[in-house]
């Protein structure tokens, strides 16, 4: 990891566990799994959409985490380091599994073609209280839309808006500048909004 990725990590919640790992790394494996299996599985599901692939991703991630644990140098939070490993495995796997070049999302794709297409009122899915619109159908619709995103946009959206990493942290995890993270995130959000909107328009 480069110097640019350094940041203070005084409050890493895993610090104690990592100290224990220095004397006996194998002894902390079960606890590491307990802490991160669910988060990583959900990350895998959002990225791959298929349980089998998500499971493979989690297993490969832990294998690498265990293998390189003594190489972890506190340049970043441990959690971010784990996601860095998971994200790079995931992107490599997905690249291998398809040959088509990745689609770029351009901004004008989401701009209304003419004045008339500009919405006049806030649509119901955005106007009603969140708990009234959030049902299983909408959840599925949203998950499907996330899976439609090209990988490089999807991974940013998942880290930022689902996993809750900051712009800075997402940049570290993905080796992207904060500006790049922001651009991809914004396009990903516009894409999702477009999908949600057409879903409600069709109703």
């Amino acid at each position: 990891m480069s110097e640019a990725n350094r940041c203070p990590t005084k409050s890493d919640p895993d610090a104690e566990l990592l100290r224990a790992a220095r004397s006996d790394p194998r002894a902390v494996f079960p606890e590491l799994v307990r802490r991160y299996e669910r988060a990583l599985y959900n990350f895998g599901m959002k990225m791959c959409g298929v349980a089998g692939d998500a499971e493979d991703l989690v297993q490969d991630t832990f294998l690498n985490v265990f293998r390189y644990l003594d190489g972890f140098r506190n340049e970043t939070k441990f959690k971010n380091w784990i996601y860095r490993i998971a994200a790079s495995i995931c992107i490599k796997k997905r690249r291998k599994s398809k040959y088509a070049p990745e689609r770029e999302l351009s901004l004008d794709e989401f701009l209304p073609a003419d004045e008339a297409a500009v919405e006049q009122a806030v649509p119901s899915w955005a106007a009603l209280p969140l708990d009234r619109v959030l049902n299983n159908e909408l959840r599925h619709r949203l998950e499907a839309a996330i899976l439609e995103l090209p990988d490089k946009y999807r991974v940013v959206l998942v880290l930022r808006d689902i996993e809750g990493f900051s712009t800075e942290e997402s940049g570290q995890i993905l080796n992207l500048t904060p500006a790049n993270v922001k651009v991809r995130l914004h396009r990903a959000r516009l894409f999702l909004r477009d999908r949600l909107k057409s879903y409600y328009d069709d109703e």
Partner: protein
Amino acid sequence: MSEYLDNELDGSLCREIEAHLERCHACKVCMTTLQRTVALCRQAGKAQVPDSLSRRLRELIGTLAKP
């Protein structure tokens, strides 16, 4: 717009945008629907780890624990 929603803009720019949203209905609709999209993502459910995966991870740890 995303930077505004993420509180990543400085105060003066933020206030400029807010003033514009007050006056411009189209932008207001735009911002509201984008905000809702983000809110929906944040509500995405977390699945439980399936038994098959727990088993695989236990096996992985078992293999690595062998001297």
